[in-house]
């Protein structure tokens, strides 16, 4: 009985992992980049486009990078001429739609760079999804166009 339970549990875990993985492959990240910042900047911003070709809404709930102390999901909102930056609990990537992280809008707020980054250098960002999967993104450091 114990054995059957354990076996079933294993199958469940395997199935869940499969679902999570397939959901990950439904997300396609393009044009990921980190905005090059002046020397001494303690906070940088990361941008990208995430497309969801799958049938389910997916949320990005967190992000981290080995090159930064901490990353938060943020959004700049300009209301009545006041710019407010607000931490977001998640970014939604709607089924069949896309999420755009761009200047003066949603972005990754990347704090405490471990070492100064050079132009063109790749930053690894790992996005955590609400289905338990994670998505690794390479984002080069570049100047805003």
């Amino acid at each position, binding site marked *: 009985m114990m054995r059957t339970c354990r076996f079933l549990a294993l199958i469940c875990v395997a199935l869940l992992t499969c679902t999570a993985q397939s959901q990950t492959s439904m997300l396609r990240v393009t044009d990921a980049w980190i*905005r090059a*910042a*002046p*020397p*001494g*900047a*303690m*906070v*940088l*911003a990361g941008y990208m486009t995430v497309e969801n070709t799958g049938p389910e809404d997916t949320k990005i709930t967190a992000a981290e990078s080995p090159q930064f102390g901490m990353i938060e999901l*943020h959004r*700049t909102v*300009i209301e009545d*001429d*006041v*710019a*407010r*930056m607000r*931490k977001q609990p998640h970014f939604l990537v709607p089924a069949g739609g896309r999420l755009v992280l761009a*200047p*003066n809008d949603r*972005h990754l*707020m*990347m*704090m405490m760079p471990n070492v100064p980054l050079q132009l063109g250098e790749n930053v690894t960002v790992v996005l955590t999804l609400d289905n338990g999967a994670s998505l690794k993104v390479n984002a080069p450091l570049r100047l*805003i166009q």
Partner: protein
Amino acid sequence: MDTSESKSSQSNRILIVIAVVLSLTAGVWLGNQVLNRKPSLDEISATVLNPPKTISDFRLNSHRNEPFTLDSLKGKWSFLFFGYTHCPDICPTTLHTLAQMDRILAEYPDAHANVQVVFVSVDPRRDTVQQLAKYVPYFNKAFVGVTGHEDEINRVTKQLGVLHVRVEQKQGQDYLVDHSASVLLFSPKGAMRALFGAPHEAQRLADDFKKIRKLE
């Protein structure tokens, strides 16, 4: 007969020359009228202040560690933007746009003369003179970073209606600052002449500025 014919054709020629000279003169005059006329406010997307807003003196420091006072705004057209260096998104975006605007204006020597761009910190706790010295010239070597005592910054922002509010985060995390996203334009008299509302666009800033200069 021959002589009178040649005389009349000569006078015709003279008339034609006079007509050409007159129309050229008129053309140049009209052209000048068009170029030098004062633009109407409808052609300017920025909010132009009539009369310009004067403010009382203040004592701040530039990133070159020199005093920055009301006098520093006189004799130049100054674009002022209020922000902070721990702001990763809108502040560098706006400074980048102002640098683009400066490059556009540089193609018009008349419009580019006596222009300065000033980044005023609304986060003097973290934005020291040294921090601004590293940050501001990155966008354009001629840009001026300004910081100073919190009370002095508040004195300037209050007079100009520039909002800035510290927003505390969870324990152990750095605070954020909500701040006005406008760019303010000061005339060489040291008074606020116009306000550009966000979002900013380099070409529009440059076009508006060229027109506002002609209002003086």
